[in-house]
């Protein structure tokens, strides 16, 4: 266990250093802070002096060191557009994105597992065939087209749910703007989270089905049948747990895709989250905000990957042994 955490920490440090280097390079190369701080009227000499004072003529490494120190203390620069600390701006939008992502994950779990399992247990059943055809087609529809179709059908044609914004939110604990607790907020959440879920669902349905079918072929499932166990017990106690191992791994990998997809979804639905903010920042060349976004997203990745590994270790007893050494 200690080894596991140590290794994770090392890896996290490595990743964060790379990300911070990239985001520092962005801040450094894009946009001139002096330009931002002073007007056009200031002479070149004064600018140079200011440059020196700000340490902009120091070597790359020492500048990076300063940046890193700032970053550790939570100072990622000030957004040009919002004139506020970049980190605060980002964190302000974090709840919206997280809520969107979690709703999508929730939908994926409650739909993909039953569908995948059913398609594996009864591969010849018409419903399974339907599931497979739909998920094959779904796999081929890019997320933005899914989103557009949802908007077109549910918002324009049927007028069932709003197509942009977050609607009414409530503030909980003074830090979290949540849309979960109002009817309006949930209505607004409906289409974006569905779009996100539908885009990622086919991968999971197909994976769960394929893995489940393989597990069901295995000797220990046959042995379980020969013990006279009931079908639900074999499917859900014996097979599902083994099926979930590779699914968890892929889930970890897909977490990255999920974040990328939130950018697309938020753009289409004008969802006031981090992705939307990021695209805005890119268009406005708001470099501190862009680099702050990178660092926050990097942090999210590190945390999710650690979580995924932990869950994997909990489900798979052979992994637990590896960390028994200590």
């Amino acid at each position, binding site marked *: 266990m200690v*080894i596991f955490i*140590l*290794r994770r920490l090392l890896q996290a440090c490595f990743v964060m250093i790379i990300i911070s280097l990239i985001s520092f390079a962005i801040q450094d190369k894009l946009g001139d802070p002096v330009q931002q701080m002073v007007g056009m009227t200031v002479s070149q000499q004064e600018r140079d002096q200011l440059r020196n004072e700000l340490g902009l003529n120091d070597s790359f490494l020492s500048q990076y060191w300063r940046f890193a120190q700032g970053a550790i203390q939570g100072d990622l620069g000030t957004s040009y557009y919002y004139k506020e600390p970049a980190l605060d701006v980002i964190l302000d939008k974090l709840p919206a994105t997280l809520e969107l992502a979690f709703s999508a994950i929730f939908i994926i779990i409650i739909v993909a597992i039953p569908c995948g399992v059913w398609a594996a247990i009864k591969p010849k059943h018409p419903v399974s065939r339907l599931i497979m055809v739909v998920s094959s087609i779904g796999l081929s529809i890019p997320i933005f087209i899914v989103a557009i179709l949802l908007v077109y059908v549910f918002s324009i044609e049927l007028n069932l749910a709003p197509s942009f914004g977050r609607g009414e939110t409530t503030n909980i604990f003074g830090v979290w703007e949540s849309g979960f607790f109002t009817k309006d907020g949930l209505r607004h959440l409906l289409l974006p989270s569905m779009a996100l879920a539908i885009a990622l669902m086919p991968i999971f349905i197909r994976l769960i089905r394929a893995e489940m079918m393989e597990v069901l072929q295995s000797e220990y499932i046959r042995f379980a049948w020969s013990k006279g166990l009931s079908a639900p017990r074999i499917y859900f106690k014996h097979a599902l747990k083994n099926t979930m191992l590779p699914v968890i791994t892929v889930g970890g990998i897909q977490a990255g895709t999920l974040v990328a997809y939130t950018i697309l979804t938020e753009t289409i639905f004008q969802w006031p989250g981090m992705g939307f903010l990021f695209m805005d920042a890119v268009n406005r060349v708001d470099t501190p905000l862009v680099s702050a976004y990178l660092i926050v997203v990097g942090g999210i990745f590190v945390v999710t990957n650690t979580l995924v590994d932990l869950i994997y270790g909990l489900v798979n007893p052979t992994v637990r042994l*590896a960390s028994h*050494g*200590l």
Partner: protein
Amino acid sequence: MPTPLIQISGLEKAFPTNESWLGQWRFQHGKLKRRKDSVHALNGVNLTINQGETLCVVGETGCGKSTLARVIMGLTQPSAGEIHYLDQRIDQLNNRQRMVFRRRMQMVFQNPYASLNPRMTVYQTLSEPISFHNPQLSTSQVDEQIDALLESVGISASSSDRYPHEFSGGQRQRISLARALSVEPDFIVADEPLSALDVSVQAQVLNLMMDKQEERNLSYLFITHDLAVVEHFATRVAVMYLGRVCELAPTRTLFSAPKHPYTKALLSAIPRLDTNTAQPIRLIGEVPTPINKPVGCVFQARCPYANQRCYEQSPAMMMQGDASSVACHAIEEGRL
């Protein structure tokens, strides 16, 4: 007096366990220490293979018999010890220096389904070594050799353009043997060549191997766990346990008068056809994984005759009256 062809002395091989750098740290006596574990597959093997004989190596899973084969063939580098071919030392050669011996020593593998390249026809499989080792041969000469070779192992030459998956297990093992014979070696290591085959097919392959031995005066190092085959085929038998040879004897002597406690247990455990054989001798526990280099006799943990000396001192091979040699303190001391 038979001429020794291969001489092996003090052969050792340890495989480092595949642990990451972080995994090597251990808490021992309250301190954090770094330790590299390794599996000791061979712990000092001494063997001689004579010209024209069949030396069978028997033992259970994990006793190091396959490692022995791989080390002799130069597929794995030994950690210590020497291997001599006639009077030349061959264990430290690089690939180029080894080339001479590649033609003289060949190998037949266990799994007929994996030992032939699935993307190469039988012709390609055989022509590669022939033309590689005999660059002076013309294409038609190579073809001729291949046809003769295939027919000599009982495969129709007209099927040389087929892929391995079109043949059955026994036929593939024949092709494997043909490949080994293609460079005209005088020594063949066969690593469990029969274990994947059915009884009736086993007999075919074993017959073929015996025919070839007679024809070409081959020497075999035959690795197997099947004692019935050993009894039939071997000139001498070496019994291995946890990386050491514990008994080496002419076949008839070994089967009529086994000496080492492990050999006795092993022989008593063979399910023979006659139903009135004695009860098998029961051993305590199972074969341990040799993570640490064993101290004392390798068999001590399961031996009913083990005493203090067996835990401390490793027994040496002692020549017995009937031309067998045994590594056992109990026999040396006359306790057994």
